[in-house]
């Protein structure tokens, strides 16, 4: 008779040797580095061109995002419609994304179509003209989108907590207002394009099933651009955190929930505590089995979900707790968050719980390494943060071995309520 109350034996995930498949690497004629991962069963390809053209470099709010967006809105040879048509005809996706530090153009396509598509990207990166009419449509539509977002408490809360943590003048704390979008001009966008794309710093990441002759093809289309390889270093910009620590803001009088954000400044990945705090964060609020989730959702039912995380910035980070909770239980939720911090400061995490978290995290990394795009995402993160593969292996080692004492010390160092900004947007 099967005894269902006994769990089958398991291999502890921490007994797995994790390896990050190494990349291939070469330089284009102009020195632009190309990192590649050749893997996967499907004939698909992801090409990412990363420029140091995020809002970190803009003189005026909204320029970096607008420039990045409008790369697909017209060259002297192709209208916006034609650019879209050129990609979509082949079932390919060309997306652009603007982050704080970098701005990316990415292409997802069946490998067999790559030759048809690279010339279009080359055109965008050498000959974008930023038509006035296209900018007007962009302004109008992004203002409208912003108006909708401004009615969402979670959107407003996300912007405000960043502004408290870094100051509104810092690239990580700034946010775009309707009037900033209104004030955009093609002149400034063209200048930004000139400085940060045409003569910018560029690095490429290519993953998937790589076709023969890809290196030559990339060199043909991108090897002659006037860009240079990145220094992987960012200019230092001082943050100016707010003086006041606690905020309650009413955004919508009919709200039935509050968006809660609790956050404290935290160093970047180069800090010796970072890798260990990643483990502590998982215990605290990093996944579904975390203490915050267990207490505040699964025990009390105050929220649909609560998470803590370290922000994914390059220069400096912050440790944030984020949730949407019923309006009548927001204050209780905040009390419980501080209570969970206190528990982590006062009591060692017991070994059983810690093993669960270790196994969960290692299992997660194993799962994350499924497929070429995921492997490349790990590498990209390492490279853009100016780290090397040691970072990956040391992170794995910390997950496997960091002691409960060390985690308690870190809780005492970082999970102190007076370090945290606290915000509820109703």
């Amino acid at each position: 008779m099967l005894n269902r109350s006994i769990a089958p034996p398991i291999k502890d995930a921490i007994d797995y040797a994790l390896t990050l498949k190494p990349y291939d690497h070469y330089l284009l004629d102009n020195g632009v580095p190309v990192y590649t991962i050749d893997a996967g069963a499907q004939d698909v390809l992801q090409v990412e061109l990363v420029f140091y053209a995020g809002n970190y470099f803009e003189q005026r709010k909204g320029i970096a995002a607008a420039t990045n967006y409008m790369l697909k809105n017209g060259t002297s040879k192709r209208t916006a419609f034609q650019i879209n048509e050129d990609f979509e005809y082949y079932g390919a996706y060309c997306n652009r994304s603007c982050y704080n530090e970098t701005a990316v153009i990415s292409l997802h396509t069946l490998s067999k179509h790559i030759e048809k598509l690279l010339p279009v990207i080359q055109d965008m990166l050498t000959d974008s003209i930023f038509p006035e009419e296209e900018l007007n449509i962009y302004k109008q539509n992004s203002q409208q989108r912003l108006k909708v977002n401004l009615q969402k408490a979670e959107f407003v809360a996300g912007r405000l907590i960043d502004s408290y943590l870094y100051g509104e003048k810092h690239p990580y704390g700034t946010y775009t207002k309707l009037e900033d979008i209104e004030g955009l001009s093609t002149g400034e966008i063209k200048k930004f394009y000139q400085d940060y794309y045409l003569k910018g710093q560029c690095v490429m990441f290519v993953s998937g099933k790589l076709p023969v002759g890809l290196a030559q093809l990339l060199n043909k289309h991108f090897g002659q651009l006037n860009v240079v390889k990145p220094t992987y270093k960012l200019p230092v910009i001082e943050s100016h955190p707010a003086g006041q620590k606690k905020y309650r803001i009413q955004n919508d009088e009919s709200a039935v929930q509050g968006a809660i954000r609790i956050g404290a400044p935290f160093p970047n990945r180069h800090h010796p505590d970072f890798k260990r705090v990643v483990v502590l964060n998982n215990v605290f609020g990093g996944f579904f089995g975390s203490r915050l989730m267990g207490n505040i959702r699964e025990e009390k039912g105050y929220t649909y979900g609560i998470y803590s995380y370290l922000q994914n910035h390059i220069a400096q980070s912050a440790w944030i707790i984020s949730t949407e909770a019923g309006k009548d239980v927001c204050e209780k939720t905040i009390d419980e968050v501080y209570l969970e911090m206190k528990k982590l400061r006062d009591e060692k995490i017991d070994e059983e719980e810690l093993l669960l978290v270790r196994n969960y995290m290692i299992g997660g990394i194993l799962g994350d390494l499924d497929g070429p795009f995921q492997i490349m995402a790990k590498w990209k993160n390492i490279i853009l943060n100016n780290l090397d593969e040691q970072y990956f292996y040391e992170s794995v080692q910390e997950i496997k071995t960091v002691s409960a004492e060390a985690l308690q010390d870190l809780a005492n160092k970082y999970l102190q309520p007076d370090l945290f900004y606290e915000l509820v947007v109703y």
Partner: protein
Amino acid sequence: MIKFEKFSLPNGLRVLVHEDTSTPMAVVNVLYDVGARDEDPHKTGFAHFFEHLMFGGSKNIPVYDEPLQVAGGENNAYTTNDLTNYYCQLPAENIETAFWLESDRMLSLAFSKKSLEVQRKVVSEEFKEHYINKPYGDVWHKLRELTYTTHPYKWMTIGASLQHIQDAKLDDVKNFFFKHYTPANAILVVAGNVKKDEVKQMAEKWFGPIPAGIKYDRNLPVEPAQTGPRKLEVKANVPLDALYKTWHIYARTDPRYYVADLITDILGGGGSSRLYQSLVKEKQLFSSIDCYHLGSTDTGIITIDGKLVKGVDMKVADAAVTEELKKFMEDGITQAELEKVKNKTESAMAFEDMSVMNRAASIAMYELLGDANLINTELLRYQSVTAAQILEESRIIFNENNCNTMYYYAVQKES
């Protein structure tokens, strides 16, 4: 070509195995043939609510998540109007943990009072977060009610009313479980770094002893053909006017489904699609517009939804959409447009099949539709669609008597 093998246990559980040794992981996907369409109209939201309760402990195992996490796994689940799907991924060596957990909750839940009370609150917060405390959050609630008069697609998976979840009793939970959560109503897909023989052995060991239960006989009211246009005007606290239009299409297994699917791509898929180019870029009546369908198993709907540029009159915007559709119905499409949407479909499928977790879910979903091998033959069906079929179907679908229109007006002070 995605390979898999299939067998059934004597209790009726269908098992499909997809081996992929390139990953160290295994995926265990359990699909139950029950969705919001199977709910009592007075107890809506129950299938989804029940999904939450499936994590509240089973007959012999007090909690679901922890043992899985200890084994290096993670999991989630989702409920649609048609089905409920549970999936977990863990290192392949530990796959038996997933068999143990999934089979015990198929055998019987713990029916804990506490889990019921807590999840009632959690789902209420989910309801608030996604459908009340968000601009346009009630759109689908209204749109489904407008579009469906009879079929249970007329309510959303979260439920027609928060009250239905507040009123749920433990007895309701038990009845729902024993009616729907039986081997005969489930499909188990195991994928990743696994061997078919081992899977078979473990399936027999863990799922074999579960009583078969009664196969649920689905007998849903059929949505009658719509005979005249329907309109609804709504005023809401949102910043922008929005226009929503729906038309009834075909069931997922109908050959014309593929034609309808491609029609949505021609009209609304991406920056070179017809509606975007004409109405957002050229006429600038909308700040965004999209055309899509929901892939429903029973007769579904095509939706066009767009937000209007401030100051544009709703009727003008609506007429412009109708004008585009008229062009479509009169002139049809070019060969290049057809080629484009077929290329897009081919590409989308290749990307979707990259992860073993997606492949497992797709195999389960196609098996539910009647044939898991559809995962390999779907593309051919799309490729055989002709421009003439698209023209013909567009004239049937976009007939004004088949149309539902919702004017969603913003009433808000300019801030």
